[in-house]
């Protein structure tokens, strides 16, 4: 510990942190540096502005089992309101920086200079590999140190506006590149994203929230004097007046008029101030945006509702044509991306669906960034229904949000909304209502096919499949076609049981035809089952080459015949002409296996999944017809 007096005002100043090189005098805000045993004044710095940060100088906490103490405080501003950074000293002699952003904390440690890295090479959304890790640049900005307090490792220069680049890696890793006023060789700070409860700080030590919110909770519009109920006054930077459309700035703790905006042509579906429970959290709707994109000359608008919960922070509900999507911010470093092709996040692959130039048209309610009408972003959507991954990129920043499709009924129930019209069209991340039926139909088809195989196996095994008659019939040359002279009777044969009979006929023909009338005559009952087949074979050649037609063989299955003794009578029909003998072969098979019906049953069973697939595929085709990134 080193004690002394401020060279400017003489007040007591004290160095307790071994790594601190300067201390800010609590009386006159002089930056006091120690040079050996003496102190030097290094100009003045602004006094810390009250914010809603729960931290304060002197707090003690634990990180990765090592205690730390907050010894210094910086406030910076890159034009969107101040943020706090705390200089901490660990019990093991290390020191680091604890920065805050929208309710999240980042514990960062100096990792040395990253040589040969240029600011102009780093852009939001860009992926880089540093310190053996993959990172994604989320933000690039610059802004001076406005205020300081406590002990710091180096002097601060409020007149300078240093450049910085923030990037995220997987699993909460954070990288900040501090370029200072240079544009190369930044100082790298690597750390982890943490929640307040992970800092190991006794809640009794935490600072109570600033009274800023009390002044703004019941404010009035500076243009129309309409009452403005701010529901997140300690976080809001902009407010859109719902009465006159004025856009007001609240970043400095009081309302100031910025510009008059066009009011939305309809009231928000979720009224500002409405509360609803989604994902086991009670949210308050505090902001309403209308954004749009124009594709091939057609404007496509949608609405975004900003939801706020004191402990969870901010999230979004997007509304488009009756569809709702719940959007939550995610770290860019947790997403693997092939731009405009696919993304991989949390074990799921997302396909690129669309890329549009999104413009904010109208604004109502409160927002935690300096929103303005006309602000734009390149919005790319990747989908894995019912989920989506959205990348919004501007020149200075890229934000990633993870979306989940919600049914209109779920949102209606959560916020007690009146009836809204049914959803129109297909939202990119809308779940396919028919995909479940494809799986179900396929599964059941497999079950039935298994049953079919078992049944057909049983029938095949039990089939007699016995040749009961096989003969060659010769029709004498002098026979008359279709007459008794062309008839032939087989020897009697037995059909030992009731069953089908398969008839196979063949003949050797040369540019000729032969008709065969067959009659199976039950010798006991006199019942006759008759059939007729015509065999033919013609061939020749012409200018196109050789040709042939007809079939010299035929086969058919007769219906069930009772058991008994049968005789096959055949009667030949043929072309009248020069007499010639004709010969044909006939084979009768009793109780043959009948595979034809197996095929018919199989086709019918498969109709279910085929129909379900056609319906599901039709839905996907209609979905991807709206994609401007190549489709599936």
């Amino acid at each position, binding site marked *: 510990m080193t004690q002394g007096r401020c060279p400017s005002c003489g007040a007591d100043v004290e160095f307790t942190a071994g790594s601190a090189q300067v201390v800010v005098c609590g009386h006159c805000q002089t930056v006091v540096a120690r040079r050996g045993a003496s102190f030097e004044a290094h100009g003045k710095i602004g006094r810390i502005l009250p914010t809603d940060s729960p931290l304060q100088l002197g707090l003690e906490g634990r990180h990765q089992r090592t205690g730390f103490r907050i010894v210094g405080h910086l406030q910076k501003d890159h034009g969107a309101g101040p943020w706090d950074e705390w200089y901490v000293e660990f019990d093991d002699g290390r020191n680091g920086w604890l920065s805050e952003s929208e309710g999240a904390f980042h514990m960062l440690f100096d990792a040395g200079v990253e040589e040969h890295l240029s600011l102009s090479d780093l852009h939001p959304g860009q992926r880089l590999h540093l310190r053996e890790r993959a990172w994604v640049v989320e933000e690039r900005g610059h802004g001076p140190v406005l205020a300081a307090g406590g002990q710091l490792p180096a002097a601060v220069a409020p007149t300078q506006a240093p450049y910085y680049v923030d990037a995220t890696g997987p699993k909460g890793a954070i990288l900040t590149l501090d370029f200072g006023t240079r544009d190369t060789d930044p100082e790298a700070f690597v750390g982890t994203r943490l929640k307040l409860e992970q800092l190991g700080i006794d809640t009794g030590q935490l600072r109570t929230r600033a009274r800023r919110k009390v002044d703004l909770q019941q404010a009035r519009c500076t243009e129309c004097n309409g009452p403005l109920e701010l529901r997140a006054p300690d976080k809001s930077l902009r407010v859109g007046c719902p009465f006159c459309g004025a856009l007001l700035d609240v970043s400095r703790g009081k309302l100031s008029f910025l510009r008059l905006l066009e009011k939305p042509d309809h009231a928000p579906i979720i009224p500002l101030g409405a509360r609803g429970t989604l994902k086991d959290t009670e949210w308050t709707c505090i902001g309403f945006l209308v954004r749009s994109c124009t594709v091939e000359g057609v404007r496509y608008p949608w609405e975004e509702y900003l939801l706020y919960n004191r402990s969870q922070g901010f999230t979004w509900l997007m509304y488009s044509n009756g569809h709702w999507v719940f959007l939550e911010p995610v770290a860019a470093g947790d997403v693997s991306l092939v731009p405009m092709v696919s993304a991989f996040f949390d074990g799921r692959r997302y396909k690129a669906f669309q890329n549009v130039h999104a413009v904010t048209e109208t604004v109502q309610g409160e927002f935690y960034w300096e929103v303005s009408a006309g602000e734009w972003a390149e919005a790319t959507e990747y989908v894995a229904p019912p989920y989506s991954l959205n990348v919004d990129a501007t020149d200075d920043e890229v934000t990633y949000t993870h979306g989940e499709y919600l049914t209109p009924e779920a949102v209606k129930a959560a916020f007690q909304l009146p009836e809204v019209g049914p959803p129109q069209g297909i939202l990119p991340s809308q779940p396919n209502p028919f995909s479940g039926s494809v799986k179900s139909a396929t599964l059941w088809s497999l079950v*039935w*096919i298994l049953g079919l195989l078992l*049944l057909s196996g049983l029938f095949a095994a039990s089939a007699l499949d016995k040749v009961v008659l096989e003969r060659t019939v010769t029709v004498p040359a002098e026979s008359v076609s279709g007459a008794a002279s062309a008839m032939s009777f087989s020897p*009697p044969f037995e059909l030992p049981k009731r069953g089908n009979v398969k008839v196979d006929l063949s003949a050797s023909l040369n540019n000729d035809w032969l008709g065969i009338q067959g009659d199976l005559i039950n010798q006991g009952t006199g019942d*006759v089952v*008759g059939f007729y087949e015509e065999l033919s074979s013609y061939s020749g050649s012409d200018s196109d080459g050789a040709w042939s037609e007809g079939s010299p063989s035929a086969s*058919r299955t007769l219906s069930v015949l009772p058991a008994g003794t049968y005789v096959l009578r055949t009667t030949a*029909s043929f072309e009248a002409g020069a007499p010639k003998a004709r010969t044909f072969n006939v084979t009768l098979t009793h109780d043959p296996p009948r595979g034809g019906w197996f095929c018919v049953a199989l086709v019918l069973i498969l109709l279910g999944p085929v129909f379900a697939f056609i319906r599901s595929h039709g839905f996907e085709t209609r979905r991807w017809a709206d994609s401007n990134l190549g489709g599936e």
Partner: protein
Amino acid sequence: MKWFGGVVLVLYALVMMTGWAPFSGEERDKVPGNVRRGPSGVLLWTGGFQGGK
């Protein structure tokens, strides 16, 4: 829809057990009572449809 496969299976079993052959193109007839039998007891019936186109 899932029970449709079961219906198909039942119909398949019925068709197989009954031996139904709707496309056999066969014709049923009966030998007249006055047809004589040959030496081996075979009905020598020369009537009925004689075939042809």
